[in-house]
């Protein structure tokens, strides 16, 4: 009896452990963070995908299963969930990037026993190409996009997702057997690069990795100076909200790695030799996207260029969490860590500059009668000042013996004008005199009058701060 009971409990334990492990193998991802309305209403939308170990969306979860938090200056801060929606309709199609292993082993047969067969039909790569072609046919939504990336010792043929299926088919046909030096398999680095490529694409993104799962890296590979490995590639995929579906192309030894890549990123593992199940792959991807949850929450006001949106999903079996960064930069950048009162000094300094500028006046308060010569025009103009002061007369001409000699102006010729002090004022005379654009023989000068000599003007200024009192009186 006791033995029976023991067996019963053991069986129960196995069953429960089984349930536990199934639940624990659920996966959660933030497939998109939409911060478009952040500036308007401080709200952020997070699209969340919860899938079981077979990559199927987990339906019927409630608002209370989720909690949101964000990184802030003082650690993670909980955020108020403003609205919760299930099965949101996402338009814009799905971007699928096919990542195809083109290493040496892909030209073996399924079992790996026949390695140099000329019969293309038994090559693993042939099965891979056929699988891609059939998946392309399944992508009936015209908004869906497909891209292609093949790899062996390095990545090749990187085609960004496009709506043009023919282009993808053409590129697929270009995948040729690698030479012996190229025949390595940089599986994880290629996957990392594929995620980096897909990162630049907007919308829902999925990777379908077709490989026999045998990572066979080249030591000191110049194409991958920095190695990330499988775990980093998986983390990267999770952070970018990309699920990776894997297609096994060998009879054995590949389930472990390809399986865990798929499971941990929320994808699923398929065998290319199981065409019946494979035909459901596109539908599964579609279902996963349609089964997303949309959480709208109030964002924090933490500083920094990027902010971490963190979601936790609690089921009766445990807590799953994931996070994703979004851009939160501000115009002026990060504040000072410590406020320094010294910066306030800039205000009186600025005020001092303004007061100083105001005090400068840019004016000539005092002045004596003087002549200002403006020569030439525009930028070449030169200004020269002659103070009349106590002189009784000033002669102006091109000649050297004049009081004011104007050189380099051929228009003056032999012309000469003379300014004389008379009755407390000044009188100008000359044989060919032009004052204020008017011909004259002789006239009393008032302040501001301009005497034209060739292309030079000589301006008389009586001195400032003192009115002539005889304004606009003509002679």
């Amino acid at each position, binding site marked *: 009896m006791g033995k029976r009971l023991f067996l019963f409990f053991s069986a129960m334990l196995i069953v429960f452990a089984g349930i536990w492990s199934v639940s624990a193998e659920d996966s959660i991802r933030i497939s998109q963070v939409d911060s478009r309305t952040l500036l308007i209403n*401080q709200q952020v939308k997070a699209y969340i995908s919860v899938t079981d170990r077979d990559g199927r969306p987990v339906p019927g979860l409630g608002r209370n299963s989720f909690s949101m938090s964000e990184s802030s200056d003082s650690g993670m801060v909980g955020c108020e969930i403003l609205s919760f929606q299930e099965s949101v309709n996402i338009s814009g199609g799905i971007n699928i990037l096919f990542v195809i292993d083109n290493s040496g082993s892909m030209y073996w047969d399924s079992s790996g026993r026949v390695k140099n067969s000329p019969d293309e039909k038994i090559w693993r790569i042939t099965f891979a190409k056929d699988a891609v072609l059939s998946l392309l046919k399944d992508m009936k939504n015209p908004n869906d996009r497909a891209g292609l990336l093949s790899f062996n010792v390095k990545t090749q043929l990187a085609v960004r997702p496009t709506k043009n299926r023919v282009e993808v088919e053409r590129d697929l046909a270009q995948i040729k057997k690698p030479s012996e030096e190229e025949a390595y398999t940089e599986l994880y680095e290629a996957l990392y690069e594929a995620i980096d490529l897909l990162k630049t694409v907007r919308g829902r993104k999925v990777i379908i990795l077709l490989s026999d799962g045998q990572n066979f890296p080249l030591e000191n590979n110049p194409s991958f100076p920095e190695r990330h490995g499988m775990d980093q590639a998986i983390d990267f995929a999770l952070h970018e909200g990309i699920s990776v579906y894997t297609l096994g192309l060998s009879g054995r030894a590949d389930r472990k790695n390809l399986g865990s890549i798929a499971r941990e990123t929320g994808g699923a593992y398929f065998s290319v030799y199981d065409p019946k199940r494979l035909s459901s792959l596109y539908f599964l991807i579609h279902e996963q996207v349609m089964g997303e949850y949309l959480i709208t929450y109030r964002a924090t006001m*933490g500083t920094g260029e990027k902010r971490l949106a963190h979601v936790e999903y609690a089921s009766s079996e445990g807590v799953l969490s994931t996070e994703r960064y979004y851009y939160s930069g501000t*115009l002026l950048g990060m504040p000072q860590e410590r406020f320094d009162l010294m910066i306030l000094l*800039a205000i009186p300094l600025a005020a001092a500059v303004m007061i100083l500028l105001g005090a400068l006046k840019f004016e*000539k308060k005092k002045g004596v009668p003087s002549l200002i010569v403006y020569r030439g025009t525009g930028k070449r103009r030169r200004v020269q000042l002659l103070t009349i002061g106590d002189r009784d007369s000033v002669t102006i001409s091109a000649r050297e013996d004049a009081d004011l000699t104007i050189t380099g102006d051929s228009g003056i010729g032999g012309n000469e004008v003379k300014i004389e002090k008379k009755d407390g004022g000044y009188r100008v005379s000359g044989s060919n005199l032009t004052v204020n654009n008017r011909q004259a023989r002789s006239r009393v000068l008032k302040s501001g009058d301009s005497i034209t000599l060739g292309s030079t003007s000589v301006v008389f200024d*009586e001195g400032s701060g003192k009115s002539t009192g005889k304004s*606009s009186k003509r002679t």
Partner: protein
Amino acid sequence: MSLAMRIFFFGLTGLAAGAAAWPFSEIVLFFQAKFASLLAFNSVLGVSIGFVMGGVFGMSEGVLNSSGKKTVNGGLAGLMVGIAGGIAGFFIGQAALLYIGTRLFNSTSAFQTYGFPLSRALGWALFGTCIGAAEGVRSRSFAKLRNGLVGGFLGGLVGGLLVEFLRILSPVSMYARLGGFALLGVGIGIFYGLVENRLAGALLRVLNGRQRGSEIPLTQKHTTIGSSTTADVTLHGYGSIAGAQTGITKQKGTYTVTGAWVNDEKVGKKTLHDGDIIRAGDAQFQFIQKKEKR
């Protein structure tokens, strides 16, 4: 003051405007986490910085003319429109930054190295554009608005690039932003003067008296000259000059003067030609037109 001096003067007032705005920005930034929303945060930044910069820019014309009344009135009007310009500037700048930044965030890292600093500089430029435009709105002049837009954009861009450059040199330096604000102000000021210089098809050179040598760009459609502080060009220290009786109107590249003497002849209204001598009261000017339409 010659046109070159005007540019220098506006550059200095811009420097003062930027330096005065900087401590306000640091105070608001320091309390970023205390704000309820990004909108409130940017609004307060816009109000405080626009208030200061708009006020100083508004004062500059009065300071240039050594007119206390013009300084006060201009400053008050400047800070009012500055607030509006500041809010608009921060909102537009931040919106553009978030839009571009989010796109950059999903790009390759090689692109981000240049993309992020450039997008922030662009945000600064948009903010500068709004602050620069405020001065044009204040003076109700389309030409000044245009000057302000160009100067603000370029000044903001140069200032923003400086902040980004200094950030690379020394990430913790709080003086990076001071440099940015100073350059933004200088940029608005200098480009304001420069573009004014460029756009002015004609200018008046003061030939006598206290403001002898000053060059007044005729950028506006209608420029009034007189002893009143409400005139566009305020002259003092000259006898027999009316409040704002003399005016110069620009139309399709032709300038017409009213209420003055031209070449020693009293005119009601007269089309001006390059070299004409204009007299208003005791003040005498020479009209200089760069390209005369015939």
